[in-house]
């Protein structure tokens, strides 16, 4: 009987387009799936649906203008992206940054990280089929956005960092509201675990799915929480500390399972670590200026510059080749999402389409960051 089945009943290989307009691809990402029945043989990607050529635009903009463009990459870690450009220019020109600015930047960084991870958590549940989490996630995110609105003047693409500091000083309510948020979020975060993390169906969908080994993770350039779930130590905040990360105590979250559930756990734990950083720094904001005066026209000396920051999705980097002009000669934006997407084919081979959706969610892609 078995012989008969394998001989005559064969599944056919075919191609399936997923996206560019598909709710589970988190934006305009087009995946070309090669399927055998429902089993994924190969995942190819087609990008460029939201390509704005920011790298080319940077070549005609001054450094102060470039800061604003980086907001539009990974809009969920806009503050970190801005910071990368600012740190690069400040380091190149040897601008001394007072402690107050460093602490403010770090605080907003961590709030951004929590807000990004909370959104990810909500969408993660939704991709698996649990619609409630989206509402829960947005409840906490709203609190952070309100804090941003008060201090930075905007909720998403805040443009808070400028070269030499931050745009406005902290609002008088900032400290109180962040403290309120910490108290609130500490109560709500365990709720996330009861709601989703320990749900049997949810865990069955993630555990052992989308495995990638430590060696492969390094080779494919995986970074951020996705790589830390495979046991790769790659937290830029630890390896190359910037701003005020060297004065806060926190752990780098590393799991070794390398599956979807490990990637999920890394981000949940990271939110606890972000809270720890916030708690340590919120009472220790030094007095002083919020902005250092810089020259009106900024020219970087000839040479190569590189600055990396830990964005919510991973290792974000800006590489500038300068010829001494007020415009960069070449500016490369190294996006964490693009590198993570490279490993998608490796993770999904032999799995089903529903698993692909879950894996896409656990590597947490943001398409404008991939397309640039």
């Amino acid at each position, binding site marked *: 009987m078995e012989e008969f089945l394998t001989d005559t009943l064969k599944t056919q290989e075919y191609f399936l387009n997923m996206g560019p307009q598909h709710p589970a691809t988190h934006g305009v990402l087009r995946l070309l799936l090669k399927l055998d029945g429902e089993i994924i043989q190969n995942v190819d*990607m*087609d*990008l*460029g649906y939201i*390509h704005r*050529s920011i*790298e*080319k635009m940077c070549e*005609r903009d001054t450094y102060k203008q470039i800061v604003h463009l980086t907001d539009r990459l990974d809009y969920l870690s806009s503050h970190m992206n801005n910071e990368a450009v600012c740190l690069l220019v400040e380091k190149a020109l040897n601008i001394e940054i007072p402690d107050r600015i460093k602490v403010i930047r770090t605080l907003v960084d961590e709030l951004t990280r929590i807000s990004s991870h909370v959104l990810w958590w909500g969408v993660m549940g939704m991709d698996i089929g649990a619609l409630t989490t989206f509402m829960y996630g947005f409840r906490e995110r709203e609190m952070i956005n309100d804090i941003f609105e008060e201090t930075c003047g905007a909720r998403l693409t805040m443009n808070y960092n400028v070269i030499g500091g931050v745009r406005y000083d902290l609002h008088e309510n900032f400290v109180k509201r962040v403290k309120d948020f910490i108290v609130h979020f500490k109560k709500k975060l365990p709720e996330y675990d009861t709601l989703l993390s320990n749900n049997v169906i949810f865990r069955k969908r993630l555990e052992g799915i989308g495995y990638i080994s430590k060696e*492969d993770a*390094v*080779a*494919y*350039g995986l970074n951020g929480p996705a790589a830390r779930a495979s046991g*790769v*130590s*790659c937290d830029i905040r630890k*390896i*190359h500390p910037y701003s005020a990360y060297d004065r806060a105590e926190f752990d780098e979250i590393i799991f070794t399972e390398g599956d979807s559930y490990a990637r999920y756990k890394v981000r949940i734990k990271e939110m606890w670590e972000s809270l720890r950083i916030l708690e340590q720094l919120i009472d220790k904001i030094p007095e002083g200026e919020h902005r250092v005066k810089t020259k009106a026209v900024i020219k970087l000396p000839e*040479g*190569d510059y*590189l600055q*990396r920051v830990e964005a919510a999705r991973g*290792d974000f*980097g800006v*590489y500038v*080749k300068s010829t001494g002009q007020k415009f960069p000669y*070449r500016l*490369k934006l*190294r996006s964490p999402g*693009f*590198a993570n*997407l*490279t490993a998608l084919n*490796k993770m999904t081979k032999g799995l089903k389409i529903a698993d692909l959706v879950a894996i896409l969610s656990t590597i947490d892609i943001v398409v404008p960051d991939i*397309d640039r």
Partner: protein
Amino acid sequence: MTNTELKNKIEILSENLIFSGEDGDFLKIEVDKDNLKEFMKKLRDNEELRFDYLFALTGIDFGEELGVVYHLESTKSRKLIQITVKTADRNNPEIDTVHDIFPAAFFNEIEAHEFFGIKFKGHPDLKHLFLPENWDKGYPMRKDYTDINMLIR
């Protein structure tokens, strides 16, 4: 490990290497394009160095020449180096692919091919990734590319 010590260790791996930036943040190396592939493989496999993480691959138009800049990091020592490779032939620029050494380079090489026209010898699929499939208006990131409508300074 200081940059000078690193330089001494890398020097013996290949010929015709030009070093700079010993007192900067990272060591910069310019390598001959014929030696590139072998050199990259040695950097990755050397037990002491272990430059196994390709951080970024950047295509650059140097004006006269076209080139690629690789940023490699060692997961062992967490040192970062910058490797530059150049080709003078602007009409048919060819550089060896490194995607079989660093799988992370696969899509980055497609990107560099698309925007700079650099052909990566040995790359299996240099398709259009960001640009439309029927794009034939040249290589947009090159310095001599002109588009009157889009690039007004």
